[in-house]
């Protein structure tokens, strides 16, 4: 199929492969350089598996100094690099190109320091999201942004994508939970951005680096905010007969001044898929399900839930089911967090990630249904309802090129719709290669040129993850 173009590999670089590998080998211990074809294959793609490219070589450095040496070498040689965490990107952010060296941070996976009094941890970029929470949970702390992929994805990848999660409504996304990074730029220069104090003066380079999709440099260390967990948390299931009712209930809850920690939405196809996988006790006789989580002491949760239940009743809620035990809570979240995986068991799917103003929810859900049906396909919707970040999963058969193309087209139509109603192409998964060629729907040339000029202040030669984010045509 390959509708999305990659830059033509530089034949000169391909021809120099042996010499380049020799150069890299001089900079890294033998176990930190992957050159054999069968071993490189593991780095060919990420979670956007429809596309793959075999990289020239894979470097797995263990220190900032090694990252700097490898980058300086590639810079001097004019060789592109692709930073990589765990490779769970859903937009192809970590997919290599044939003339590029992948620089993976998986060997830099230590937690360097945990400082509870100051609520910070210093970590290497390859540590997984969940490993951080696991390391601090005994003391009652956690790291807030919780992408569903948290078992596998790395903090470096999270910063690269400015990842979100189910609990972002209250705690914010990655950029709101990071205090500093060590960044190695393409020419090997190492800079410290931010640190252990709040709000570093000067340009907010930290904000710029968060979500920069591996285009500005490689992060080799991060200082992150850890938070004290609430005394308790309780998810409650609210089943509605229509998506409209569920959408209105969400707006009414927020309108009443209640910001639950999480408000997750699933439509009927998603409920069926997730229930079959996780046996979470989701109600099967409804068209829309909200998982709303509240936090605090038992009395506080009871009081908040009472308010939420009243509002839900005003909006025609059909079933209300509270988690009664830690096991039930775990099952409820397992169902939601495995939505993508569970969908993958019944069909191939592509996952959209547009965000819309929540007031447009009923309209957009209806349109999504029409769009996908128009292509003769099926869709399951799971998303973060409180912030309007949609994840329509378009089901298709990847062995059928026509159907695959239809799925991609339907996805593009949905994303255009998101922009038209005042939203954006991607709420948390990133642009990568997947949405690169749609950037013009959201930005005009002046906007894109300004972004590209800023990008170039970090990497004038466009060697860092160059195939991503910005349309290949019209680059500066």
């Amino acid at each position, binding site marked *: 199929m390959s509708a999305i173009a990659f830059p033509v590999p530089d034949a000169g670089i391909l021809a120099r492969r042996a010499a380049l590998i020799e150069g890299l080998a001089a900079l890294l211990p033998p176990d930190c350089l992957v050159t054999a074809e069968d071993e490189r294959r593991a780095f060919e793609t990420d979670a956007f598996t429809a596309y793959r490219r075999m990289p020239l070589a894979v470097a797995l450095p263990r220190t900032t100094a090694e990252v700097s040496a490898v980058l300086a070498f590639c810079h001097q040689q004019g060789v592109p690099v692709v930073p990589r965490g765990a490779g769970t990107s859903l937009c192809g952010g970590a997919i290599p190109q044939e003339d590029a060296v992948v620089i993976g941070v998986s060997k830099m996976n230590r937690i360097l320091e945990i400082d509870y*009094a*100051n*609520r910070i941890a210093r970590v290497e970029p390859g540590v997984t999201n969940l490993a951080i929470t696991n390391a601090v949970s005994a003391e*009652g702390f956690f790291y807030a942004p919780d992408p569903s992929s948290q078992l596998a994805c790395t903090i470096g990848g999270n910063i690269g*994508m400015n990842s*979100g999660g189910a609990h972002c409504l209250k705690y*914010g*996304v990655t*950029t709101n939970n990071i205090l500093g990074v060590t960044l190695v*730029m393409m020419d090997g*220069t190492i*800079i410290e951005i931010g*640190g*252990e*104090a*709040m*709000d*570093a*003066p*000067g*340009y907010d*380079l*930290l*904000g*710029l680096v*968060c*979500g*920069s999709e591996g285009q500005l440099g490689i992060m080799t260390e991060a200082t992150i905010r850890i938070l*004290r967990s609430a005394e308790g948390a309780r998810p409650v299931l609210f089943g509605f007969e229509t998506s409209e009712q569920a959408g209105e209930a969400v*707006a009414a809850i927020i*309108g009443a*001044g209640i*910001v639950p920690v999480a408000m997750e939405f699933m439509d009927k196809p998603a409920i069926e898929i997730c229930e079959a996988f996780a046996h979470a006790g989701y109600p099967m006789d409804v068209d829309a399900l909200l998982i709303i989580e509240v936090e605090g*002491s038992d*009395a*506080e949760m009871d009081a908040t839930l009472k308010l939420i239940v009243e509002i839900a009743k005003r909006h025609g809620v059909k079933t209300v089911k509270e988690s009664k035990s830690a096991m039930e809570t775990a099952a409820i979240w397992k169902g939601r967090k495995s939505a993508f995986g569970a969908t993958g068991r019944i069909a191939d799917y592509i996952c959209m990630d547009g*965000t*819309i*103003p929540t*007031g447009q929810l009923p309209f957009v859900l209806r349109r999504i249904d029409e769009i996908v049906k128009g292509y003769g396909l099926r869709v399951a919707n799971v998303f*973060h309802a409180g*912030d309007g*970040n949609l994840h329509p999963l378009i089901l298709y058969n990847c062995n059928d090129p026509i159907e695959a193309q239809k799925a991609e087209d339907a996805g593009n139509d949905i994303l255009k719709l998101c922009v038209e109603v*005042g*939203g*954006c192409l*991607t709420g*948390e998964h990133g642009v990568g290669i997947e949405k690169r060629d749609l*950037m013009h729907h*959201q*930005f005009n040339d*002046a*906007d894109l040129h*300004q*972004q590209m*000029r*800023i*990008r170039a*202040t970090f990497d004038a030669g466009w060697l860092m993850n160059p195939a991503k*984010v910005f349309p290949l045509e019209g680059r500066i």
Partner: protein
Amino acid sequence: MTDIKRPNDEAEVSALVRDAAANGTSLRIQGGGTRAGLGRPTQDAATLSTAGLSGITLYEPAEMVIGAKAGTPLETIEKALAEKGQMLAFEPADFRLLFGTQGTPTIGAVAAGNISGPRRLWGGAARDSLIGVRFVNGNGEIIKSGGRVMKNVTGLDLVKLQAGAWGTLGVLTEVIFKVVPKSDTVATFVLSGLDDATAVTAMATAITSPFEITGAAHLPATAKSSEVAPGSREDFAAARNGIGGEGARTYLRIEGFPVSVDYRAGELAKLLSRFGTLSRLEESIGTSVWSAIRDAAPLAEPRDAAIWRLSVKPSEAPATIEAIRPAMAVRAFYDWGGGLIWLAVSAEGDAGATVIRAAAKAAKGYATLMRAPDAVRAVVPVFEPESAAVAALTRRIKASVDPARLINPGLMHAGV
């Protein structure tokens, strides 16, 4: 007298910047002019006032988002939000008292300065609430980034870049913030008589509890005698007129619905019992306490003192002051559980810059010279000096947005 330009819309801003580019003349952007004394003093050909760019462009309470043209008075925004029971999460300051200025703070300047009040501890900084901007760059082009939805990772985040750039990366024309509900009950508590180190420990204990502290500040004592009841109106007035006039006071804030606030207050009192008795302030007194802390009111007088704002690793805050004290007379107080220190020192010489910056650095932090006579700010870097590599990057970023250095040139750093 510099020439004052008052564009009425974004297109006029763009035209003015294009004119400036054609003539090679620089523009100083002015919002309400309430922070006129902040930054390096510069000599610009003209002032561009954003006063004509006023009005709320979008307010959707159910989506928790508000947008406004850059020159909209902060007051207008806060009033509109309050009517729907909402607020800006970061508690923006009003520096009129500190700077002795008139005028009215504008929402664009709030975004450009990224200055956050006591609630930053809980609700994040101004930059965390800012989700969309429109601005005119140095070529006169109108650029947008972010938007009205709170989850958005499409392209490079120029929104964050604008927050804290003090208008040196273009003229902001419109800003969009996410907002939060205002709590039914805002309760303030005070602990009395703690020394700085103990106060910071007490605040850390509170902040790392599950009870959601939305403010933690400490006003140290300068005189020890205390005839006045802690937490009374007279007591606070004394503190406001000069720090800790009546003994050290450590303030903590909890917000929420009444049942929840009462419960957490009880738990907090138990948790902090080893630091003394936690007494609850009358709500209106609490309000004045936090606005004074937010606006650095205790240091506003005397007017000739230099004012520094230090952001440090919270646990290192008391040591930071101790490191400065031998070199100069210092009046200081702490916000953000120690993470923020406001300092008043003599404006003589380098206004203490060398010693203060060394102390801040030892505490993994930064120091900004908020207030000092022009002559001092002309020679002492106002913003923390950057490493050579970061300074070079800063210059490149400025050049990528404003190549001829027309907009607020030199306001943050010489040559930027």
